[in-house]
């Protein structure tokens, strides 16, 4: 099993932390994992992306040119990464703020109204977890229970009371995928 994932969007949307939680969940599930951020002076507002590789074998390159799975949170990232999903791969995106939808037909494109669901749930900060839920539905690389354990590791203890909210968001994201 190997899943080469790119998660991309604006800084502040929780792109890097979503990758981090997935990475910790994979560790909990005894997988090999690499998490490689696009680091830089790109805080809120700029673009940010992270490459997460999950595998049951040792991972060579942490840097990739094509991906099995893409989770796309803004137009710039869609423009940049749509063409880099491997044929047969999965592209998950939130249509909120997207004015040019994906056009590829050789991949599975999944539209997830995560922003809408976030507003409905009144939990702006769990936006990324809704998308993580959608990702886990399409790519059941790790069980939700491992993600919850991953959350415990990725979040500082003072935020542990928010884990149930995040778990609810993950399950909501899973339900959003038809």
């Amino acid at each position, binding site marked *: 099993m190997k899943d080469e994932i790119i998660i991309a969007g604006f800084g502040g949307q929780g792109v890097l932390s979503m990758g981090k939680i997935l990475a910790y969940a994979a560790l909990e599930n005894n997988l090999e994992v*690499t*998490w490689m951020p696009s680091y830089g002076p790109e805080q809120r507002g700029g673009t940010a992306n992270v490459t997460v590789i999950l595998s049951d074998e040792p991972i060579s390159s*942490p840097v990739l040119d094509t991906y099995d799975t893409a989770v796309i949170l803004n137009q710039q990232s869609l423009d940049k990464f749509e063409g880099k999903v491997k044929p047969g791969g999965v592209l998950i995106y939130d249509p909120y703020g997207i004015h040019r939808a994906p056009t590829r037909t050789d991949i599975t494109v999944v539209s997830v109204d995560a922003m809408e669901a976030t507003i409905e749930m009144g939990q702006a900060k769990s936006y990324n977890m809704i998308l993580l839920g959608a990702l886990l539905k399409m790519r059941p690389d790790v069980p939700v229970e491992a993600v919850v354990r991953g959350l415990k590791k990725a979040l500082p203890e003072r935020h542990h009371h928010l884990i149930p909210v995040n778990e609810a968001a993950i399950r909501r994201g899973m339900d959003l995928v038809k």
Partner: protein
Amino acid sequence: MKGNEAIAHAAIRYGADGYFGYPITPQSEVLETLEALMPWETTGMVVLQAESEVSSINMVYGGAATGKAVMTSSSSPGVSLMQEGISYLAASELPALIVNVMRGGPGLGTIHPSQSDYFQATKGGGHGDYHLIVLAPSTVQEMADFVALGFDLAFKYRTPSMILADGIVGQMMEKVVLPPQRPRRTAEQIKEQCPWAVTGREGSRKRNVVTSLELDSAVMEKNNERFQRTYREIEKNEVRYEARYTEDADYLIVAFGSIARICLKAIEDARKEGIKIGLVRPITLWPFPFDAIREAARNVKGILCVEINAGQMIEDVRLAVSDRVPVCHFGRMGGIVPNPQEVLDALKKDFINK
């Protein structure tokens, strides 16, 4: 955890006595993690944010002169500032660990990954005839492991050693097994291990002087001869490298650090197309694995040296094979990291579809 965090954890677990540093991207997490872990309350390790890189390296000099296990970390522009101190450490035969998480230069350059300090790290960097033992980690695990290795080699040979990493392995997270906690050495153990250290003279011990200054040229030449003997000894004993797929290879890639992993993926992809490429990854950049590369290159049609710089290690690769095999360079600069496909395309262009 991140490679930079692994360095911090490994330093505490090694039983290091002190860390002196100044923040700079992409390695600020080293100091940040040490400050968060507060080892001064557990092992007694000193962690100090100095006012600059120049003072950091001179604090390292001071600590090292007393036989303590001390270290610093920085990134390219900061390591340039440290060169005077590093030359003094080498000349005073002091063990210390310096970590350089390279970013793109020259000048302040970029904060993104680079390997353009290869020359600086392996060919001296500061003034005078000296070498550092240079270790190039390619995984977060090696970031952790090379802290102990770097310190051990530094103490064994009384010479500073350097971990030459890059922004990729510093910033990326992966699985790591940390070494067990070792106690810091006691004052008695330091006196026994480092009889040269300035530890406060008690009783009749001869006075220890730690200095790089020697105005008598005859003595200074003797000192240099002693340094060179140490370097020959290190070259004999401490060469480290990793060879993959070299037995049946038609082409060879030589790459170090995280770039070697990108090349490994290119090599595995190429094997699916029937192109047989081998990899030699120097782990010690100094001493350089000349023999291993010569051996691996015996039956190959060409060598591609992949580095994220304009071509620095390629000079040592050429020396290794004495230009009996064509050697080409592929690299990106300024913080750009090539992907596996670019590496494979470069190899095909240079050797297969030329």
